[in-house]
């Protein structure tokens, strides 16, 4: 396997392929992240592009289709393809979402929240164990954003904590999702982060979002990161061991690449400050 990732990376999308391939040395992303489903079965120009990017950057992946919370059985044929892809690019972790996107073998291509119930914890735990066993690597699950409350026996925080304890998996802390959920469901994001099982966090996502009404934010990955989300990162980062940070941007890319570079610089600055502080401490 490659050395574990570190530093600040950038989500790889075709729209920014040229930018990534001609970045230069200054403040270059330390790694790129992509969805394995969007690349693993492609040949031709897409494969060539991926190989060019992989020659310049360490790659990590963030899956979309595992559907770990789904009542459906695990699709081991699909997992085998993902495993091949991860092996090929020597990717250490399998990161995915704590969500479901499949029911009765029908696919939705979007992430729905799992009910915060004890049954769901048991069910997800059983599936995580089988996935990790098959993939021969740790599964890292992301706290997703959700816009409506689902049938629950516990809070989101309790649910994630139980999952992390019971499943033996790592967590991907999406700081923007914490902000989005806290806003949409009226809780304190700082209190949430204080109680979050931070010892399980292996990776951080940062992104922008879109406020669609006075009381609702949608996690679009189509805008710049806002200051309150940077503030949450500054708050949580010193509480973590050193983990890689990813800037996610899926669409509505800025016309001026400098805008994207500025966001990366800001994330690097925050990370460096935290490293400096911990060194002096």
């Amino acid at each position, binding site marked *: 396997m490659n050395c574990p990732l570190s530093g600040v990376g950038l989500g790889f999308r075709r729209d920014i392929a040229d930018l990534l391939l001609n970045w230069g040395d200054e403040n270059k992303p330390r790694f790129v992240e992509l969805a394995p489903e969007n690349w693993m079965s492609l040949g031709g120009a897409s494969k060539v592009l991926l190989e060019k990017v992989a020659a310049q950057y360490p790659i990590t992946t963030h899956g979309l289709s595992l559907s770990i919370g789904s009542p459906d059985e695990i699709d081991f044929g699909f997992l085998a393809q993902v495993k091949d892809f991860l092996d090929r690019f020597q990717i250490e972790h399998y990161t995915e979402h704590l969500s479901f996107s499949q029911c009765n073998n029908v696919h939705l291509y979007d992430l729905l929240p799992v009910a915060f119930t004890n049954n769901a914890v048991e069910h997800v735990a059983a599936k995580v164990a089988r996935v990790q066993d098959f993939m021969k690597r740790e599964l890292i699950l992301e706290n997703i954003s959700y816009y409506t409350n689902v049938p629950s026996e516990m809070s989101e925080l309790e649910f994630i904590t139980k999952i992390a304890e019971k499943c033996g998996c790592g967590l991907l802390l999406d700081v923007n999702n914490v902000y989005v959920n806290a806003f*949409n469901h009226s809780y304190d994001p700082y209190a949430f982060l204080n109680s979050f099982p931070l010892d399980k966090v292996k990776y951080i996502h940062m992104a922008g979002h879109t406020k669609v009404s006075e009381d609702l934010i949608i996690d679009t990955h189509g805008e710049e990161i806002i200051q309150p989300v940077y503030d949450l990162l500054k708050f949580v980062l010193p509480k973590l061991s050193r983990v890689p940070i990813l800037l996610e941007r899926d669409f509505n890319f800025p016309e001026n690449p400098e805008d994207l570079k500025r966001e990366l610089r800001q994330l690097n600055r925050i990370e460096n400050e935290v490293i400096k502080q911990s060194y002096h401490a």
Partner: protein
Amino acid sequence: MRKKLEAQREDLEVNMNAFFNFCLEGKLGEVAVQDVSRIWNYRRLVFTVFEDALSTAYPIAKSIMKKANWIDLVTGFMKENRHAEKELWKMPVELIGYCEEFNIAEKTDMPYLVDLLRFEWAETIVFCEKDFSDEEAERFVFQYKEQTFLFGPHFRLVDSKWEIHTGERGELRPTFYFVYRNADLQASYLLVPPIYAYVIQNIEILFVEGVEEFLKILEFSTQVPESELRKIWEQFFSSFCRLGIIKQVNRIE
């Protein structure tokens, strides 16, 4: 333990199915959420995912179709189709079967619709499909004039009752499209005459039997005289070589 897991699964299924189906069908039914107004955001988000993937795969069909019909097509497809493809980029192929089953061509007054979708999907698939391994590409190799050639191998033949590639409403005119991955790895197409289409439809015989046997079989099935067929083959061979669709190889590259 197994029974317990089974019971948990059933419980989860009840809770999740309604939510899941709502996203595809837009009917609230048994959905158990506290804030009904917000659940519509999921419906909108899922619609956007589907619409975006279908627009990317079928830009010509979308550009020709009336906007309201396109929206109806996407929502109908979301609701009625069992979306079996796990990878999003492959999902649009299922629209073709849906349009056939629900006779969308007639409903949208686009009798050429299914042929157009097949043509556009052929472009997507030759562009995207996985590169063949050397072993797989061996199936597309043939010997001719003591040399070895590779045909394609990323291509599709679309047999259309309509001329549909112009970006305008289809004309009722039988047309054969040879869609292939070109040297720049982009999808290209050729309008080919029916005899070329027939050659391509039967091209596997060439790979198995060789050129001479292939021409004999074509002569038998088409009743075109052997000398005429040989001329056609030579023209086909040289034009496909010129376009890089047939390449001389020493070994499979």
